[in-house]
């Protein structure tokens, strides 16, 4: 193991090399480009003997991965924003064909208007495609999650594709010290993909053929059952990772100082870092607040989230995107998850950091102030009017 100073994007490239990915295919889009530039450098230097197919669109990039995966290859692609949207049709194909592809997604605002900053609208809008979605808070998590993602995706109980999402620029272009494990240690954790080739030369077979309604529902139900096995399988994978590498990503939801909290804020991605600092500051002032970092958005870790929020008076959900006509996407998911609880906390949807706006400790402090004022439902656009007291809309 060595410590290297890596951007989130180069943490992706390093992980892809360490995972001995056999087929990489990608199309450039800001701010994903340095992921694939890093891979291209590895290939050119002879350090990474992969088939790197430089395609003419993101749609083709994912098709290359789907087709290569059908023959049994371990595959990777990376994209962002518009590129992910262009892949939408193939996202369904990948999951439906049970292709264990891993994709790095740099979360970026969706046009129009053009914007490059961090925003979760791109991945949130792909929630129904059957992909597992993991979100990183820092660059170490990016590297670790990509390695775990292959174990999870290729596990016979799961066989689903995984997105490893990182926020644009806050992670993609910010360097941090990252523990890069030794190749032998990664090889022991992640053996070559085996037994997953669906199509084999010389054996007549077909993947994706036309089905009757009677058969179609069976395929969809199998997909749903596989999604249900993601949370326990991820737990096993993380347990093994922690034993081997001495660090843990902490499960699907990661509580921080939630004991006896009056108000808990649910976060995703890099917003968790200023939120954690703010929780420390408020706790030192005697305010009972906590943080719940969500790492897995699909499948949604309902029971883990319920357990973590049980007994909390006020819950805020901080979303770096808005689901039009509803609320923040994580807020709507959280609200749905809490419906089965006997005692349901008040839930406020905070929409903030949209399009790459900075999520500062003072913004998080205002969010907590709002929550501590008392149970109140609604949606707050916390980026707006930062100098005035926040008002509740809706």
């Amino acid at each position, binding site marked *: 193991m060595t410590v290297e100073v890596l951007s989130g994007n180069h943490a992706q490239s390093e992980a892809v090399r360490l995972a001995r990915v056999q087929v990489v*295919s990608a199309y450039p889009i800001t701010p994903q480009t340095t992921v694939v530039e890093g891979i291209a450098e590895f290939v050119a230097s002879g350090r990474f003997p992969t088939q790197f197919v430089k395609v*003419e669109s993101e749609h083709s990039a994912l098709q*290359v991965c789907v087709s290569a995966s059908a*023959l049994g290859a371990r*595959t990777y692609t990376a994209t962002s924003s518009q590129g992910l949207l262009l892949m939408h049709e193939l996202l369904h194909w990948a999951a439906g064909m049970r292709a264990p592809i891993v994709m790095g997604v740099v979360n970026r605002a969706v046009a129009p208007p053009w914007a490059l900053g961090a925003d979760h609208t791109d991945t949130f809008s792909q929630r129904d495609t059957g992909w597992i979605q993991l979100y990183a808070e820092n660059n170490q998590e990016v590297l670790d999650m990509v390695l775990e993602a292959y174990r999870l995706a290729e596990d016979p109980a799961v066989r689903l594709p995984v997105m490893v999402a990182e926020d644009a620029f806050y992670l993609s272009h910010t360097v941090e010290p990252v523990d890069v494990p030794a190749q032998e240690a990664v090889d022991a954790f992640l053996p070559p993909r085996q037994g997953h080739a669906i199509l084999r030369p010389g054996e007549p077979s077909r993947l994706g053929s036309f089905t009757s309604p009677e058969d179609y529902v069976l395929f969809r139900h199998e997909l749903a059952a596989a999604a249900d096995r993601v949370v326990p399988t991820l737990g096993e994978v993380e347990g093994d990772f922690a034993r081997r590498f001495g660090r843990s990503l902490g499960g699907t939801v990661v509580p921080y100082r939630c004991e006896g909290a009056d108000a808990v804020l649910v976060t995703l991605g890099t917003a968790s870092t200023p939120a954690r600092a703010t929780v420390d500051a408020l706790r030192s002032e005697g305010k009972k607040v906590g943080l719940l970092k969500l790492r897995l958005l699909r499948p949604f870790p309902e029971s883990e989230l319920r357990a973590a929020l049980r007994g909390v008076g006020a819950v805020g959900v901080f979303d770096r995107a808005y689901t039009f006509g509803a609320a923040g996407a994580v807020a709507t998911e959280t609200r749905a998850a809490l419906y089965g609880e006997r005692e349901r906390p008040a839930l406020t949807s905070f929409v903030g950091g949209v399009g790459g706006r900075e999520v500062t400790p003072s913004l998080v402090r205002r969010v907590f102030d709002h929550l501590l004022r008392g149970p109140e439902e609604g949606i707050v656009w916390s980026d707006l009017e930062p100098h005035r007291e926040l008002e509740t809309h809706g």
Partner: protein
Amino acid sequence: MARLTIPKEELLRPGHAACPGCGPALAVRLLLKGLGARTIVSIPASCWTVIAGTYPSSALGVPVLDTPIESTGASISGLRAAADALGLEGLTVVGLAGDGGTADIGLQALSGMLERRTDAIYVMYDNEAYMNTGIQRSGATPLGAWTTTTPVSASARGKAEPKKDVMSIVLAHRPAYAATANPSFPEDLVAKAEKARAVHGARFLHLFTPCPPGWKFDSADSVAMGRLATETGLFPLYEVEDGRLKITRRYSRLKPVGEYLSRQGRYSHLTPQEVDAVQAEVLRGWVGLLRREAEAGPAHDAPSASLLTR
């Protein structure tokens, strides 16, 4: 007695779901005889999605991967990359797309695959419209043809634009091998498939595949319709290897194009003048092909250094 040159092995099995007289079914039956069993086929949404049968059966004696309609060029790139990465030796990677999936929505992925010199064979089976969805015009529908989206009325004369020249687009990418073929000339089709299999690099086959329900002719006449298309010069048979074009079915005299058009309901509205216009276009195309064949020679391959400024 002449030796039979067409392999006996049948990789299109009984029980497929093609219409009677289906050109694409016959073309692929012959194609696979030339390509052999160590082939993997990528099929986008098209007639062949249906012809190959419904889950859990398959009418093809080779592995088949289904994809969305626009993906073929990318899909065969992925299959090739995986075959190389996994060391699957001697595997022939084939994309089998319709004219709509190639000339229209799949053109970008095709161009990408050709530009990358992908070691695979892209096959366009051309029945000259979106037949699987019910006869809507594609870029490959010929001038004047009736389709459900190019109806005929007092003011509308079928498709108003000429057929897209996909072969020229393909040849602009300088593929390792490209050829036109027609199941009504089975020896020629099988020979080209065998040749395509032996060559490495990006390869392209344009197969002419008559469609009885789409073109409105009797299903017993499919082979005759294919023969007429070539004998009239409307669909000439040729191949291009390393930039050299060679006509593989040569005629000193072509049959009048009216013999072909008059036997199809999709052209039944054409006036003699409109038939004459098609005839003139066919002759222009044939003369152009002869010229391109004559131009291709050793001099064409070796540009002289004297062309450079000093």
